[in-house]
């Protein structure tokens, strides 16, 4: 029997989580200058805290995904000192346990997709450690947001690796949490100690079910579409910035850099974007993807074809962030609508 616990109100849940912040880093969605991101609750102003409930229970993901807490935009993995010809190498401290409150199903699935890359042999220990150390409190959306396409990617109900499911009982205002993993159980126990109560029932949200796109079909349609002049047109429109990749919850590309000043130095990995020309440009000047068309194509093919071939799933969760933030309005739909059309024409 999975324990279900309840907080009297969202405020109580937030307070209880606050109590745990000596043990966990607790992050939740909030706004800063109108921009939505997950932030540590200990660093929030009262005004920002008041945003958490709305954004946690809303049927739309915030602009920033949960990815940076598992795969940070920058992560030092070697620190060193070089003094008098002696090299002293340290690896940074292990990551702290963290709770992500109000994660959305699309973000949960995006982590499962990144798992396929980072947790496949050779396992990326930096990521695995954070993944093991993260408790996800997920609320299922019962409707889709304006730019969401999660139904097409079959992630609306997918909360498989959520540790706790969250839902609000509208009549009583109670926040119900159902643990569905060992980490979730432990956190539920801890929350009980912080004054939350056991509850007999969990209110399952009514999630509408729509048939998802078939990944192999999409992949095949994409492959058939490779030579289409559409890509040249799309590339002419793209301005080559990295917004789509930096806000994508499934993008996992990274760069490795070294830096040293005087005796101190570090090696770190940082996010990188396939939309930048120097992403593939080599020291000698040769670039296997020299044109914007190559790069635009690579991004869409990676998500909709290569990822299917390598990992057996579409590399997109339909969160809609890329399309929402693209300054020239290029979204996954832009491509999906076209290949769909192309397939039907045949």
């Amino acid at each position, binding site marked *: 029997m999975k324990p279900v616990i309840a907080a009297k109100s969202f405020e109580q849940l937030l307070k209880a989580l606050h109590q745990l912040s000596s043990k966990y880093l607790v992050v939740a969605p909030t706004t800063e200058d109108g*921009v939505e991101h997950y932030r540590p609750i200990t660093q929030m102003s009262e005004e920002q805290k008041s945003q958490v409930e709305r954004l946690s229970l809303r049927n739309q993901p915030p602009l920033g995904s949960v990815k940076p807490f598992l795969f*940070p935009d920058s992560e030092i993995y070697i620190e060193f000192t070089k003094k008098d010809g002696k090299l002293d190498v340290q690896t940074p401290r292990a990551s702290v346990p963290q709770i992500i409150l109000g994660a959305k199903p699309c973000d949960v699935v995006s982590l499962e997709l990144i798992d396929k890359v980072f947790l496949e042999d050779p396992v990326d220990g930096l990521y695995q450690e954070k993944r093991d150390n993260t408790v996800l409190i997920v609320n299922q959306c019962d409707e889709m947001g304006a730019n969401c396409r999660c139904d097409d990617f079959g992630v609306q109900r997918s909360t498989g690796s959520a540790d706790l499911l969250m839902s609000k009982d509208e009549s009583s205002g109670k926040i119900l949490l159902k643990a569905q993993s060992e980490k979730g159980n432990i956190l539920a126990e801890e929350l009980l100690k912080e004054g939350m109560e056991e509850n007999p029932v969990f209110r399952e949200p009514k999630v509408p079910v729509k048939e998802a796109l078939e990944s192999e079909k999409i992949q095949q349609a994409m492959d058939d579409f490779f030579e289409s002049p559409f890509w040249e047109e799309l590339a002419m429109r793209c301005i080559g*910035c990295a*917004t789509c990749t930096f806000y994508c919850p499934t993008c996992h590309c990274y760069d490795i850099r070294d830096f040293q000043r005087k005796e101190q130095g570090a090696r770190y990995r*940082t996010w990188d974007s396939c939309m930048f020309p120097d992403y593939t440009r080599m020291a000698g000047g040769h670039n296997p993807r020299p044109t*914007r068309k190559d790069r635009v194509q690579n991004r869409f093919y990676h998500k909709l074809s290569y990822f299917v071939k390598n990992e057996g799933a579409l590399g997109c969760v339909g969160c809609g962030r890329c399309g929402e933030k693209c300054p020239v*309005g290029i979204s996954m739909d832009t491509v999906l609508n076209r290949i769909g059309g192309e397939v039907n024409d045949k």
Partner: protein
Amino acid sequence: MCKITEELQQIAAELLKEGKVDLVLGYTKGEQEEQSVPCIVTQPEDASKLIFDEYSEKALSKYLLEESFQDKKVAIVLKGCDQRAFKLMQDESRLGREDVYLIGVECPGMKWGEDLSPFCLHCDYRTPAKEDVDSLLTGADIPEAMQGEPLDHEDSFTDINRLEKMSKEERFEFWKRQLNRCKRCYTCRNACPVCTCRVCVFDRENPDYIDRAKDQMAQHQFYHVIRAFHVSDRCVSCGECARVCPEGIPLHLLNQKLLRELDKFYGEYQAGIDEVPTPLSHANADEPDFFGKEGKA
């Protein structure tokens, strides 16, 4: 359908039919509500895709420098600010006027969410000059707020005044909070119609002064100061930098602050309207000397 859109579709279809141009670069309805996106039309029958409305913000002129637009005869839709950017590129010998067919449009003012963009409220060059373009389409539905005299700089960019009144520490905290969100996606740079360097200093092969390391505040400051500086006197006040920033950083304030200073000390200059050289590309003895109050020792 508004008058401009109608005429635009006609002209585009004619130009393509007569083979005067290979493609028409304009706007079409985007996938989202209240969104217009750049659009390339190559067939006369597709000219009906073209529209022009209060969401056609994207400055199109810089596309002309892209490799895929070379060796093609292009017709391009330009609002006032876009034509300024085009003129600047032309004056800086980045492209030739004769290679392009310019379709000037009267701008009804662009929307920023519910409101009109502060740039448009301040703008007194909504419509390109007739002699600068090949066709000029007028008759836009001008909102009331834009019908009178344009607002003064002080009254349209009130955030600059607000920031100037703060203490230095408050200002530092303000920009620290804003810039901390920067992901350096370079959207502001790529969208800017006057950011036209062939190789950007931030695109060099593994430069050690810029990467995505932790505690990047210094690098954010570095990037944004240089970006604002490089386009300062050449800014055509289109507002793209602020519109496209996914993190909502008010980048235009940096540019507009610099413009205000330039106007104050060196006289008013409007890039793309006034003749080149731009203020920062020339200097002379008559200008104020801020660093020599004590004179020669």
